[in-house]
């Protein structure tokens, strides 16, 4: 069973937890934001053509097409 329940921690404990965490994070290597955003952008663009919710798929191929009834064309 996980050892702690947050409700039992005092504010002091919580603050100590936060400080230890921040000390760890200070040493992280960070990449440039402009570069990261470019990469996100490229990733999306390369995949967007195969994305059925972005491009849409024809009714015949759509597994969730309207059951029976009329077809609008």
């Amino acid at each position, binding site marked *: 069973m996980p050892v702690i*329940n947050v*409700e039992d921690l005092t504010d002091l404990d919580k603050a100590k937890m936060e400080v230890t965490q921040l000390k760890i994070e200070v040493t992280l290597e960070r990449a440039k934001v402009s570069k990261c*955003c470019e990469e996100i952008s490229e990733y999306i663009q390369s995949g967007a053509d195969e994305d059925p919710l*972005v491009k849409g798929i024809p*009714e015949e191929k759509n597994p969730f097409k309207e059951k029976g009834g009329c077809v609008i064309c």
Partner: protein
Amino acid sequence: YQSRLIIKSIFIDISVIHLFVFLTLVHQVAEKIEALGQFVMKTRRTLKGHGNKVLCMDWCRDKRRIVSSSQDGKVIVWDAYTTNKEHAVTMPCTWVMACAYAPSGCAVACGGLDNKCSVYPLSLDKNENLAAKKKSVAMHTNYLSSCSFTNSDMQILTSSGDGTCALWDVESGQLLQSFHGHSADVLSLNLAPSETGNTFVSGGCDKKANVWDMRSGQNVQSFETHESDINCVKYYPSGDAFATGSDDATCRLYDLRADREVAIYSKESIIFGASSVDFSLSGRLLFAGYNDYTINVWDVLKGTRVAILFGHENRVSSVRVSPDGTAFCSGSWDSTLRVSVRFRFSGESDLRNILYSMVLLFTGIRDYRW
């Protein structure tokens, strides 16, 4: 041709103008990319059968089955193509806030106010009593808010109102690793896509989103820019970023390598909390369910809203895109689940799409049927 131009110019999304003020970095980089224009989303299946609020849902990897759980303790497995119920089980507790499908499709996990996560193997024999084979796996000291199988049926990751997340072995019920760092209830967790290694992200009532190393239990990164509880966290498809939905009515995108927030998805008119978010297959669209009963679809790059889906008659509690990206399912406190797709006219033309969208927006037609 001229009328087409006029219609296109009338149809500028006002939020783009708003956002020039709030431009964040992803949107700056994406300036030259063509905007998506307005989408029309249509509900294609409505799954009715829960007697009470639907709190959680998950897709099976076979892209057609869905498991959902509700306030009255019922957990139902549906075939979304036919809307048939395949299995149903009643949990001994109410408020089943978490449910998940196993990667093999042979079991489901669920839990809530019982503080536990239980695994039910799914039998091919529809008459068999599922509850008989139930296995209790996780034990927390407060409610279970979220659960997820790792890449196999053998391990489950859980998050709880006791402020911790934990990794369990399904067979023995043993605690393999526990994750401490949140200073309030943890509401949601999401595993990184398998190619990117053993990490997961969690979000909670302390407004923080934490990224964890599953093997060491270490909190490797944390993000605190939301102004209220984070209700949902979801990894971006490449694993380099994740999105959050919060009670502060915004969704945000955080980049892991840059270690900061890189985009915010909000509008002045949206004042209710976002309860659930998910990405489309390529990551271009972010689907977010809100407490004002709507689902907003955001263009991840531009930061604009490309569609609103009405139809639910109460809060949307859970939104998930299907594994092959063809549809998304939304679960709501109105006790239904809806599977929706992008509506396209066959032999579609740009002009017709725009005209129809305009008609819908200006007349405020909610549940349009052709």
